[in-house]
């Protein structure tokens, strides 16, 4: 039973057709990454899946009562809007203080509740957004270019956090990224998008697919391998991960 299923999805943004005939489904507990060049319709696909844009053709079916945690691409809070982290996590519904503390701890930003949102660093801000998405105990976590503005170690740590959360909360994760080498190795499935689905499958299969190479070139293959090596290395002794499997196959 899929959490969200899209069939024959065609979406227009203004007069431009952003997506054509996209089929998509995500199962419980699965990590799916959407990659694609700028303007390939990645964000539009996410927006269609959460119901923020109406499809011109096709349909989106969400499991009834599906709890979605959404981490937006960017959140430009106007400087005139005073907002503490606590108040932000209480939007749009008031929450128990203990739930807020739990979510902040899960996102590794415990103790920030009384800070102003505007006083947070880029990395802290991103994790507070993550904490808010976790408030509802989501079955599906959606992240739209969640690591924009973070440096490479920062994004790698962020994606590791996401993978850990998937294991502890048992939620599905759907993310969009153009940081291929960082994001792909943590995914169960990668979808390469360019207005339509070019190719999809396990990270290795997509990385070697001719459609993917045509979009991103062959250069990223090396970076991917490099990252994988570091990834396996740094987590061997701390986690007993299902990922190890995958890495062995890759190396």
């Amino acid at each position, binding site marked *: 039973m899929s959490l969200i299923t899209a069939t024959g999805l065609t979406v227009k943004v203004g007069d431009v057709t952003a997506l054509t005939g996209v089929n998509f489904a995500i199962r419980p507990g699965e990590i799916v990454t959407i990659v694609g060049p700028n303007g390939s319709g990645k964000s539009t696909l996410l927006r269609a899946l959460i119901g923020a844009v109406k499809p011109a053709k096709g349909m989106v079916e969400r499991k009834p009562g599906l709890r979605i945690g959404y981490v937006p691409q960017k959140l430009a809070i106007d400087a005139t809007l005073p*907002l503490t982290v606590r108040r932000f996590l209480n*939007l*749009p519904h008031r929450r128990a203080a203990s739930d807020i503390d739990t979510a902040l701890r899960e996102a590794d930003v415990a103790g920030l509740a009384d800070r*102003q949102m505007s006083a947070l660093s880029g990395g802290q801000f991103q994790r507070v957004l993550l904490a808010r998405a976790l408030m509802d105990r989501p079955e599906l976590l959606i992240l739209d270019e969640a690591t924009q503005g973070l440096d490479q170690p920062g994004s790698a740590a962020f994606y590791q956090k996401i993978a850990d959360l998937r294991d502890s909360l048992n939620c599905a994760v759907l993310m969009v990224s153009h940081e291929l080498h960082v994001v792909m190795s943590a995914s169960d499935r990668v979808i390469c998008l360019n207005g339509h689905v070019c190719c999809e499958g396990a990270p290795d299969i997509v990385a070697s697919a001719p459609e993917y190479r045509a979009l991103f070139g062959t250069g990223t293959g090396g970076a991917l391998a490099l990252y994988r090596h570091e990834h396996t290395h740094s987590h061997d002794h701390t986690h007993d991960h299902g990922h190890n499997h995958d890495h062995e196959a890759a190396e």
Partner: protein
Amino acid sequence: MLDDFLIRAALAGVGVAIAAAPLGCFVVWRRMAYFGEATAHAAILGVALSLALSMSIFAGTLFAALVMALLITGLTQRSYAMDTLLGVVAHSSLAVGLVAVSLMEGVRVDLMGYLFGDILAVSRGDLAVIWLGAAAVCALVLWRWSALLTATLNPDLATASGIDPRREQLIFTLALAVTVAVAIKVVGVLLIVALLIIPAAAARPFSRTPEVMAAIAMLIGISAALGGLRLSYLYDTPTGPTIVCMLAGAFLVANLRALFQTANRA
């Protein structure tokens, strides 16, 4: 008590200030000052309409402000920036409205009253309209507060939380139109936006949460309305502009304090 024109004026000013403050916070947070300006200026078209059809000024201005607000909400930016479009719409509607009113035959109107307000001429009927309108706006904003705030932060974030940002925008627009219609008598179409944004802007340095900012803005608005009324009575100055001068003073003081604090910290 309501026989005294000063009491009526004070009550009118307080009523408008209460409605305008929380709504004004959203105008500031959403960066919609110019949107508010265009909506307010359209109200003068509503005055012309009311005079032509001999219906109540309130109904005419509410209608015009609402139509204008909905129209510019639907404007998509194609070849002009939103800023430019709003500028065109705001000033054109003001100009067309003024021309239309002056062309009206057999009607002698005090245009200055509509442009800058005529708070001392508030009747019992006006007062009832102002307080009913203000109560409606407050109830609307209070009811939708969290949803509006979420939609203000990020429309997609709101959608994912089950809030329709377009619906919230529509409610905001409706509240803005009602505020414009009730505030005309107090400060006039040219100064309504001042009543919306200056209290909010002056409250910002003192606030840590959105709710506190709205509450402080309300206090500032009420004090400025009462203080401005008093000063205009003492010095025989036009009341609407005097109220706005008080607001400007509050803004200045609030930011002097902030400047001073920054200097101390450095």
